[in-house]
């Protein structure tokens, strides 16, 4: 009887978790159809950039260092879902996010004007609305980039909203 009570309690705890489960990341092999659907995009980008797109965060390689000594851009891989401005033909894109351990709206340093959006934290599987410009022209500081064998250009996220 005791074990039944325990199981019932465990089930009761797990149901809400299961109900809240979001779409699976691409590399889990269980992506739901809606995961590939483009998220709603604002009619006009909130900032000017070379590329505007929705993309699903496909891979974060490694862990984000603490922001103790340096500010840095961390390069993450996205699967492109829909491009609404600019030309981009590859299925995925490498995007550098500035100090990803800090919520976009909490960035108040000298990069404030170059970083915006409502993303609070980065998790594989999240769909983001991104406004991008080439990283090389915008950021000369430290870059954490595990894709060093990939010679494609890196993009700087001027804006990152989490698609609802």
């Amino acid at each position: 009887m005791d074990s039944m009570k325990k199981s019932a309690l465990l089930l009761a705890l797990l149901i809400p978790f299961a109900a809240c489960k979001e779409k699976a990341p691409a590399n889990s092999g269980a992506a739901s159809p809606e995961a590939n659907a483009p998220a709603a995009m604002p009619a006009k980008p909130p900032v000017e950039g070379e590329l505007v797109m929705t993309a699903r965060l496909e891979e974060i390689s490694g862990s984000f260092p603490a922001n103790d000594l340096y500010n840095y851009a961390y390069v993450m891989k996205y699967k492109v879902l829909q491009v609404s401005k600019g030309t981009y033909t590859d299925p995925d894109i490498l995007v550098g996010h500035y100090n990803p351990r800090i919520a976009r709206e909490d960035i108040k340093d000298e990069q404030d004007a170059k970083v915006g959006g409502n993303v609070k934290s980065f998790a594989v599987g999240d769909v983001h609305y991104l406004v991008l410009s080439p990283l090389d022209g915008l950021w000369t500081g430290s870059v954490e980039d595990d894709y060093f064998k990939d010679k494609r250009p890196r993009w700087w996220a001027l804006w990152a909203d989490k698609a609802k």
Partner: protein
Amino acid sequence: MRKLEWTLAIALLAIVAGFPLFQAAHEAVVDKEIPHVFDVFRIAPSKESLHRWDDNSKDRSVFAKWLRPVTLQFRYDMLGEMAPKSVKGEEDWLFYNQDVDYLLQPPYTDERFYKGTFDTLIAGKRVNLRNPLVAMEDFRDRLKARGIELLLVPIPGKPSIYPEKLWHGIQGQPPSPTLALLEDLRKRGFNVANLFDPLLKAKASGASQLYLKRDTHWTPQGMEVAAEALAGRIKEMIPDPDTAAVLEPRDSLVSKPRYMVKDTAVDRWGDIAEMTKVPDRKKIWSLERVTASQVSDAQTGKPYQDDPASSILWLGDSFSRIYQTDAPGSAGVIAHVAYLLNRPLASIVNDGGASTVVRQQLGRRGELLKGKKLVVWTFVERDLRFGSRGWQVQELP
């Protein structure tokens, strides 16, 4: 008694469950997001993804965001203590914990240095990549195969030059483990540059302050001492120091100065002061005013610029970035070495990434190796122990 037990148990459960529940409710109601706690059920579990989830939980915690600054300020006010990354020294000097730890903990020649690591098989040889010599030898040999020389330059951390500012009781100059490394490297046939001797000599001669009080880096004056020593070492390695004939034949007729320098004042806010995260830090410590010499083109007056086609490639970290891309710009060690050599350099600079990241970036920018005669690889000495991503062996493009 039973009642007391229940009360304690419920109080404990309330504390354990209360914070995550409050956080989840805050994220759902205020941020209008699915609470972050549920992310753990939708990510593929791995060491890295769980670490990230854990870090995210700490970074997003409303309670921690409120409590952390209050606690830090209280600890500073009551105990003079700062966050674990900073060490308070004498006369308002601050030190970076890793700079101090590097001097105190066992060096790479001590077996304790390798505790918890394992060997790797590379090209049939069993090596431990914690040992920086493995990557250094590999990089030197890869460059040599292309006819490029390597100059290794460990940069002294602040406590190696100013130990008495850490604590007044320190007598004399405690030897940095880097001095033994330099000796070891020399025996193994490496080209090295010793910046300890010129910096300590400049300090002994009563030169201006060589490191910033509340920053991990050197002052422009310390940087200029290093630049002079390095330019001298580069000229030693290249047999014809007075003309560009060996370095850059196309410049062999250029004998007049290519650059000029102009002094400018810079106010620096120390990175160690910032690291303390003490809320009143800007009231406790002030900016440090230093005079830096900006290097500019003697003909056009434009600030110094790298030349990717230069025969010298510079790899470095924030010691190469400070004053160069930071304010005032074109006044860092790269510009000053270029000024002293009378020719521009090519460079790859990554804060905290001189041990491995700069070589990874070189892998993406292979064109930078074209026409190179010399690679100058600079890194702060603490990276021998704490280098970001360690000392990985890296292929050249």
